[in-house]
């Protein structure tokens, strides 16, 4: 399904990541997944949370550069080749993946995908009964 991910611009400074984690913790917002894209000067923290709108509000109030981004969340089997099935559909449809991250738990795996065009990717995945 399509869900909203929080994207937060962070300078590379000690403790900055914890500032976000602490704020969200205090606000009672749970993080279920996150990834951090970085280069030498800054990072972009991408987080899936229990309440994206509340999280955005809390972070904005503290002057964080935070935005909500539509991403695709898929639950697939934690078996060899499952991910390839998904990616093949997107590749065949000519979809470009800007970034993705995944984590597995027991028999299942969760995949977060940010394609360049979310509606088109959803259409392709639905046509193959993956979504």
């Amino acid at each position: 399904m399509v869900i909203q991910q929080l994207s937060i611009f962070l300078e590379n400074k000690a403790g900055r990541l914890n500032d976000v984690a602490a704020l969200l913790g205090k606000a009672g917002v749970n993080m279920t997944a996150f990834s951090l894209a970085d280069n030498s000067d800054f990072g972009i923290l991408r987080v899936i949370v229990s309440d994206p709108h509340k999280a955005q509000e809390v972070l904005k109030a503290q002057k964080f550069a935070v935005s909500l981004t539509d991403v695709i969340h898929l639950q697939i089997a934690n078996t060899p080749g499952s991910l390839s099935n998904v990616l093949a559909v997107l590749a065949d449809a000519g979809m470009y993946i800007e970034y993705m991250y995944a984590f597995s738990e027991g028999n299942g795996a969760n995949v977060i995908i940010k394609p360049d065009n979310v509606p088109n990717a959803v259409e392709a995945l639905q046509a193959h009964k993956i979504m």
Partner: protein
Amino acid sequence: MIWNEHIECMSREQLRDLQTARLKETVERVYHNTPFYRKKMQELGILPSDIKDIDDIQKLPFTTKEDLRDNYPFGLMAVPMSEVVRIHASSGTTGKPTVVAYTRKDVSQWTECVSRCFTAFGATKQDIFQISYGYGLFTGGLGAHYGTENIGASVIPMSSGNTQKQLQIMQDFGATVLCCTPSYALFIADKLADMGISKDDLKVRIGVFGAEPWTENMRKELEEKLGIKAYDIYGLSEICGPGVGYECQNQSGTHLCEDQFYPEIVDPKTLKPVTQATEGELVFTHLTKEAMPLLRYRTKDLTSLNYDTCACGRTAVRMGKILGRSDDMLIIRGVNVFPSQIESVILQMPEFEPHYMIYVNRENNLDTMELHVEARPDLYSDNVGTMISLTKKLTAQLNSILGIAVKVKIVEPRSLARSEGKAKRVFDNRMLK
């Protein structure tokens, strides 16, 4: 509108005679009352009687900020303390503060100059001035205060800081004129949006901005964000404070009160006068000051002078934009760089906020310059590539203007310190001295 038409529109010949007469008196006074100047003149073999014409000013010795510091606090005074009614001092960001003193007449001449400025900006006794320059040792607050009262307008003596309260008072009291530093005005403009106040909720129509150099782009931004017309008021505490110069309605240069302070432009290296309209360092000589008259004080401000009569009718000389300061020029790997150049690049790119910090370091015997700048809040992207190309765009622009590589770092929105007085934006960490 013109406050003192007799002086501001006086023919150049008449003005010259007035300047000559006043210079002679001033030189006479400092020679007899200030040992510092007597010694300097004796070293140059000059007597007060050698000054017969305003052009003879070139024979006189220069005065620098170091001279003021060396004679801290009252060494350059030409009157006994019993004649002094006011003492101000510069912020002293580097070393000891520089001290200036005023007699009763000095305060009244200063007030006259500020009155000329405010009238030129179109303010009248109907206006309500919110003075958000700092009150205290800094000349900004009290200088603007006295000028406001003198033209009969109402003063709200806010001083700087506590921006939320500033805006509340501005709104509730219906202030029509805002006086502060341009960087603080930007800070106030940003706060406006935060507090959910529209510029239409404010009655402010004139902005009086000074005490630090600013650009045309900053002017546009301030005019747009605050719904005002923004004017430059020029001044430096050593000369009197705000009121040394002002823009008229035509805004084609800053008119100087040259019946009070004689301006010259010299080459900062050779100290020789430059030919007319050429850029160089601005130098002032007090013509009427009693408490602490300075001869040929080097302002370090780089600009040029235009003696053509202005369309507004004033004959008073017009100073061009201040291009930088001869002493804040940074030499990076042998290349001269003025922070104002960097500022103008940032201001020309709508992707960036007008707040920045410059850090100069020396790594492996090589000068490096790093610029921290904020992007517009809505441009912070989820995409690393977008952020990097934003950085690259500014880097390329700076490189083409400055001719040196600057490392650009985009920092988090609202993370750079907003200044409530003069902004300190350059941190030179090279230990070369």
